[in-house]
Structures are given as C-alpha cells and as structure tokens.
C-alpha cells in the first residue's frame, strides 16, 4: 500500500504510518532551487521506499527533452535509490513554454513511434525502469485512430517500459468519452503494470467527470479496482490526494480500503 507524499503529512509521518509500504513523490517538488524539500525527503526515504512520479517530462511534446531536468532527476533517483520513475502519457509544454498541466494527445498510430522514441530516451537518461501513466482526459481528437488502451499497449511494448495504471483515470475517461472501462482493463498488458493509482474525482453538473484528487475514491472506481485486481492482481496500490487533503490517518484508512474491496 502506498501514498502520495504531500507536505501537510510530513509531521504526522514522523510519528509513523502503520501499514504504509511505500511513498510516491512528485519529483518536480524536489528538483527546485530550495534545499528544504530535499532535506525533508531524506527523512522520509530513510523510513520508506520511494518511487518518483513526474508531471513535467512532456513525453509526447515536440519540444526537446529537458536534459538539465533529466540530469537532476537522475541525481535524485541515485541519491534515494529510487527503483522506478513514471510520468503521464500527455504533453505539458509547447514552444518552449510550460503549461503545467497533463494535456490530451490524439490517440493516433502516427504518434506511436514518436512516443516510443521519447520514452526510450528518458529511460536511457534515468538508468532505472520508467513507466507511463494513462491520464484523465476531457477531449478526444478527430485524428484518433486507436482506442486509448491500444495506444497505451503499442507504446509500452514499443518502448519496453512499465505501465502505471490509474484506475480512477480509466473510469473518468470512460465516462467522459463513453467507453467500457472493463474492456479497457481486458486489454492491459498486466505483466508491465508497476503499480496502480487510486484517487477521488468530481462529477460536474454537466455530467463531466473532473479528476480533482480532492475527495475519497468513488464507489464506481472501487468496483473497477476490484475488476482490475481480478485481471492483473496482485499489484501495489497507491492513493493520490491533492486537494482538501485529510489527516494522514484518514488518507491511510482510504487506501487500506483496497484490501477489503479486493477480498
């Protein structure tokens, strides 16, 4: 069982976190100018295994990969012996400008070679296994000629990389784009799944599902998690909570629900 590391939980984590097996960091938070986050991370890394999750690699972008950023990321990986690094299958910068979001990409077979090439370059630069995460999306493009699961499968197999499967994102996308999330799970190459993400989302007045990470996991997402476990379990499970973050004990109780759900 894992939990995304958030600053509000640092003090409580010092007191211990029964049942917590690993911690996921947002790597960008530890690559900036200030030494404070890195100092705080040393204490956490001394107690729990760390995995690094990124939001800025711009994997499907056309801007050149940021080699300085990759060097710093590799230093972080080596310092804390991080076994696995992930980012989202999206673009997050264009024309040299960062957009600080996980932006949707066309599910086009013509983009697969580009994605494979970029992911191989990232994996080579980091020196540890790299994984891609399916992102929540609110748009589809006219250039789509693949299903999302087929797009993912072709890329992870072409790049020979891992998959960070976000069950909440599968559900959000399935509602927003009208596909069967169980069919999505049927197509997952489970042997490549490093771990899975869970999180809460918002249902807007217009019915759109918004990936907000600001509440407990939705019951329908838990049901989909159970389906995933039947198809591909066992796998490590991690909860993300980014807004209206509850006390550590509440977040830990939420992720531990997974044990009951999948029983």
């Amino acid at each position, binding site marked *: 069982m894992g939990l995304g590391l958030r600053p509000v939980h640092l003090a409580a984590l010092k007191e211990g976190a029964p049942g917590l097996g690993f911690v996921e960091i947002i790597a*960008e938070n530890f*690559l*900036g*100018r*200030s*030494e*404070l986050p890195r*100092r705080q991370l040393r204490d956490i890394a001394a107690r729990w295994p760390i995995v690094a999750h990124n939001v800025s690699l711009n994997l499907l*972008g*056309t801007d050149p*990969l*940021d*080699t300085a*950023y*990759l060097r710093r990321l590799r230093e972080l990986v080596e310092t804390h012996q991080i076994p696995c690094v992930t980012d989202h299958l999206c*673009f997050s*910068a*264009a*024309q*040299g*400008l*960062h*957009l*600080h*979001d996980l*932006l949707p990409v*066309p599910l*086009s077979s*013509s*983009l697969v*070679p*580009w994605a*494979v*090439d970029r992911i*191989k*370059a990232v994996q*080579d*630069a980091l020196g540890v296994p790299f994984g891609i995460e399916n992102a929540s999306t*609110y*748009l*589809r*493009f*006219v*250039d*789509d000629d693949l299903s999302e699961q087929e797009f993912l499968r072709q890329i992870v197999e072409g790049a020979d990389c891992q998959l960070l499967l976000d069950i909440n994102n599968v559900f959000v996308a399935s509602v*927003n*784009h009208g596909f069967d999330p169980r069919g999505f799970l049927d197509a997952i190459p489970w042997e490549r799944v490093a771990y899975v993400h869970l999180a809460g989302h*918002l249902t*807007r007045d*217009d*019915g*759109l599902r*918004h990936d*907000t*990470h*600001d509440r407990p996991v939705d019951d329908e997402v838990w049901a989909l998690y159970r389906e995933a476990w039947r198809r591909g379990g066992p796998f490590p499970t991690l909860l993300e909570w*980014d*807004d*209206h*973050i509850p006390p550590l004990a509440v977040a830990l109780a939420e992720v531990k629900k997974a044990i009951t759900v999948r029983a």
Partner: protein
Amino acid sequence: MTTSTVAPPAWWQALQDDFGAFLRSPLRDDGGRFRADAADTAKLLACVKDDEPGAAARLALYHAQYWMRLFHVLQQAFPRTAGVVGPFTFNRLASAFLVQTPPRGFDLEDIARNFHPALQGTLEALVRPTQRSASPQGVIEESLSALLTRVPAAALTVPAWHGLLSLDLPWSMLAQALALDEACRRAFDAPATSAWAIGDDDIAAIMASRVGVRMAPSLSIVRVDWDLDVDGVMPPTSGNAVANAATDARATAQSSPPRSRRRQTARHHVVVHRIDGVSHGTVDAVFARVLARLRRERFRDLRVHFEQKLPTGADGHLQQAFAGYARRAAALGWWIGTTVDDEPT
C-alpha cells in the same frame, strides 16, 4: 541520452502550439467573472471530436485549469499581499504578469520569484497618490528591509482594465504585506542554518568589537504595523486550485478584500530558514535594530544607540541585555557565528 531518429508529425506540433496559445490566452473580464473568450476556441474545436457533448466547455476546463493553477501558486507565495488587495485584483495582476511572462520551466517556484519585482512595481503605480504617505523606499528602509536585496521594480504593462485597478489602499500596508511575503519566499530559497552554541567568550568578543556577527543568509527583518498576521488577512488556499477551477474563478470574481487595520505599535518580524523549516517570529524594536545594524557594523557602532533604547532601569545592564539578545539570536539560527573580517556579513 540516446539521440532521436524519429521526427514528430508536423500536424502534431501545430496542434500543440495552438493548444498552448489557447491556454495562455488571457482571461476576459465579463461582468466581474473570468472566462475564456469563445473566439479563441474555434481553431481548436475544429480538431476536437464533436460527437461528445459540450466540447467547448471541455476545452474551457483546460483553460481554467491553466490559469487557476498559476493563480494558486502566486497566491500561495504572496498570501498577505493577495489578502490585502483581494483575490480578484491579485489575480488580475497575476494575469497581466503571466501574459507577459509565461512559465518557461518546470519549477513553479520560478514564477513567484519572477513575479515579485513586477508586483511591487505595479502596486506602486496603482496606488492612488493620496495614499502615498510614505515613499516606497522610505517604507522599505523604515521596515529594516534593507536587509533584503532589492530587485529593481518593473511595472507590468497593465491591460485595458487598468482603470478598475486603482488601489485605494495605504501604500505602507501594501509595501509591508509584500515585504513580509517576499521575506518568507526568499528564506525558502536560501540555505538553512542551525542553532549556534554561542559562548560567553563570543558575546564578549562581539561587545568588544573584536569580531562581527555572521548572520544567517536567509535572515530578513520586516517592520509591520498593519494587521497582517500570517493567518489574519487571508487564510491559505487549500491544495491544488486546479481541482476547483470553476468555483475558484467565481469566488475570485466576487470576493472583496478584507480591510486590515493599523496597530498601535509596530511588530518586527524575523524570518529565517532553519534546519526544521522556514521560521517566523517577532522581536522588539531594540532587538530588531541590533539585528539589522550588526549585519553591517560592529557593536561599537551601535553601542550608544543601544544604551539609549534600553528600557528604563536597564541602562546599567547593557551586557546582560545584549547577552540575552545574542543567546536568543544564536539559538534561533539568526546568528550563525562570528567574523573577523572588517565588514560583518
């Protein structure tokens, strides 16, 4: 890193460029609400599948996320300033800045670093002349913020809604809020320091002016006489603003700033980056003066002033009073050692 042999499809580069330009398109003020201009979406909507309902609304969600995330970052970095001017006005200033200076790196802290000089320059320009009872530089010096390395203020090119932004607020209030926010932000960037086990010999050497005092590089002192307590003016916003992009936008438009009040006596805030995090405390005026002057002077240069300012009855206890200050400054990581250089740091 391996060298790429694959080129991205040209259409994909064009689509990304259009998407980025759309996200960066300024928020439009419409009856006090922020929203994207529909005209900006036409090009992208042609690339989006139209068999899903509300394609324009879906695109607008990405637009709102871009702006609300960046507003959130800047509000978190300048909470007192945002509280004093109100979130709506603050976000408009942030918007003007971000249009001129869109983010170029992964580090969101860079946005706040670059925002400070623009925010300071713009606030100075927007304050009504009747509210400028003290010059900006005067306030800074009065607040002892000369300890901060001043970055030249650079006013933003304020867009059409400039007229709405004339600030009927005392400049001293704005300057103090901004100085305190910036002191905390700079401390976060600066190296951390540990407590110094200062000894009687060290105190004696400082008082004899044989040595100077080495200050924590993150140390700032800000004199504040407006009610700008850390949580008093504006409670910190929660977590990731992207989560509540739509509701935040409405709240941003409708809320007005709470009015701060002036205190009878000033507080001197000391901000420093210690091993356990950025620390924020207050000291009396005499201690503040000691801290400020010993940064650039030896004790002999402030002895007379120090003696004059001591409370009645303490005149004969100069050494005892100074030792108390010194031990506190060392224990809190404000002083980190001594220097025998001509100029204390």
